[in-house]
């Protein structure tokens, strides 16, 4: 399978750059005060054509930033983000036609749609601006685009507030697909929907993948949703991917202690939560991540060297990579 998306040691930090005042203060012996948050720290990742790659992690782990880097709406600091083998166009700088191949669908469809824009305009604005269709074709194009997501023609002249949450998310999906993307980044795209509506949208994502051969980066905090839609799943912790494997392998045989804890804490209908906490505490501040393995302060099997030695993401089985010193020690 050809790789549509390839990330090679990608970094992205946020924070204050040192300005003149800082440099003067440092020159006079003050401690450097620059805060840098490494949201994405040395990430390698591939998405194959037609594949759904799930991305899970707690809030603050950098999964949304990674999604934005893949979608090309946020520039990366270093490393390579390749789309079909070529560097991703910087959508923040280049103009027409740039980076249409990757589109993004956000969590809150109410915020993602312009409240004063009719649905027909929301869907056809981008394809017209990028010269994919003529203005005269817009009406017929919008009808087809809405049909693809299960909405009827009478939606065309209405405004976002006239739709329910689930319908609005369908409109966002239709809008993202209007420029014929090959990859869709879904960032918590079903999180704000009720469970019965969420099921409808998940079905729609799966149907569209089959009919349009789309690839997805499916980001969610909800492991049961990711588990359901994904071919492979990557687990992120404090800016780094700690484990990546096929969905079935990861769920049935998680190797990283963080993945194991995360999976055991998902409330389900059939098994009660254990009495003991699987994981103590909360995600440490990404502004000052722990030394060595970033998970070691919360890790139940941490060893002495985990404090100083940072593990690498290494293959343990076919298609199953883990970043943990303790796992490597096993025979």
């Amino acid at each position: 399978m050809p790789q549509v998306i390839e990330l090679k040691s990608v970094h992205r930090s946020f924070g204050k750059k040192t300005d003149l005042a800082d440099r003067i203060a440092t020159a006079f012996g003050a401690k450097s005060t620059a805060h840098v948050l490494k949201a994405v720290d040395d990430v390698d990742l591939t998405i194959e054509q037609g594949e759904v790659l799930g991305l899970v992690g707690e809030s603050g782990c950098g999964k949304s930033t990674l999604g934005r880097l893949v979608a090309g709406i946020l520039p990366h600091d270093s490393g390579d983000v390749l789309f079909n083998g070529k560097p991703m166009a910087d959508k923040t700088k280049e103009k027409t036609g740039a980076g249409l191949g990757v589109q993004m669908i956000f969590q809150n469809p109410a915020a993602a749609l312009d409240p004063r824009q009719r649905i027909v305009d929301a869907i056809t604005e981008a394809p017209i601006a990028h010269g994919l269709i003529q203005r005269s074709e817009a009406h017929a194009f919008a009808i087809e685009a809405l049909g693809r997501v299960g909405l009827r023609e009478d939606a065309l002249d209405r405004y976002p507030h006239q739709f329910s949450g689930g319908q609005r998310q369908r409109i966002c999906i239709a809008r993202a697909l209007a420029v014929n993307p090959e990859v869709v980044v879904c960032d918590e795209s079903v999180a704000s929907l009720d469970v019965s509506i969420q099921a409808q949208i998940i079905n729609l994502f799966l149907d569209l993948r089959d009919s349009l051969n789309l690839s997805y980066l499916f980001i969610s905090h909800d492991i049961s949703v990711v588990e359901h839609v994904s071919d492979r799943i990557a687990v992120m912790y404090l800016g780094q991917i700690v484990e990546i494997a096929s969905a079935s392998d990861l769920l049935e045989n998680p190797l990283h202690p963080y993945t194991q804890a995360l999976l055991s804490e998902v409330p389900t209908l059939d098994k009660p939560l254990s009495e003991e906490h699987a994981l103590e505490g909360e995600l440490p501040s990404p502004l000052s991540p722990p030394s060595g393995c970033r998970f070691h302060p919360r890790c139940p099997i941490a060893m002495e060297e985990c404090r100083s030695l940072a593990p690498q993401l290494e293959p343990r089985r076919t298609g199953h990579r883990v970043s943990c010193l303790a796992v490597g020690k096993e025979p």
Partner: protein
Amino acid sequence: MNPTKLLSIQGLRTEFPTPDGPLAAVNGVNLEIARGDVLGIVGESGSGKTVLGLSIMGLVDQPGRVTAGRITFDGTDVTNYSEAQWQGLRGNKVAMIFQDPTTSLNPVQRIGAQMIEAIQAHRDISSDAARQIVREAMVRVGINSPDERLEAYPHQFSGGMRQRVVIATALLNAPDLIIADEPTTALDVTVQAQILRDMRRLCRDTGTALIWISHDLGVVAQIAHRVAVMYAGRIVEQGATEEMLKSPSHPYTVGLMASMPANTPRGQRLASIPGGLPQLSNLPKGCSFAPRCTHATEACEILPDLCFTSANHAVRCVSPLHERGQHATGD
């Protein structure tokens, strides 16, 4: 009056006036809860579960009001309590925990001062004695070194810690009943599991009754002894947690469980409930769920009562699925 019943609700109806006529967010709800009982209330957005919680607390905002029914708390009819009378009860005998801990805490007051105020509002007690109660409550919800934490402001806490503070505050006056409205929805799954365990243990240790309101059946299954499922302002199914989850009988409950991704093999289409919630100001005649129900018949044009199908299980459906044997539970 049965002395073991702590809270008893009869025919509760809470209405909001709208241009289209009164809208009954809570539409004839009967509930009973005993000391030490944990009742889960499950429903999608708009089902009336939050307004039910607010009604029990006397917190329904104008122009909404309780128009019918009776709320009896600990043998006293509190339905027509004045605001002053409610204030004597709230935070004292009955406490409430909301979804977003940030909005429950005063951002410009130290945590300790807020919590001490909550005690002194109801009891004539010295600040030192109150501080001791606060310390104990904080330790009970897993906040270590409470003395330092008492001097901190809410923004210095993480989301999970803030919710612990809110829970500790609810416990201060040893309430007989806690109503928790989506208390873990804004939290990460690992933190959610910690709070679920803490609450489960607290209720067991203190005998406090708990009403846990959530959209997530998986979460409710972890904590509740009994579950009530709400749809369009009415309870449509109610029963002992285990029995109800094993043999759900209302088509809505069955549909809700079937749309959970965890209950469907990976990659398969999820069973979704067609359509959306009916307009509360214009409810269909008879069973509110009938327009979305695949089993609906003419008999559904008359509103069925909530009828017991076994000692611990009641369903509001003219032909409950489980009785007909249409829903096998996988074995």
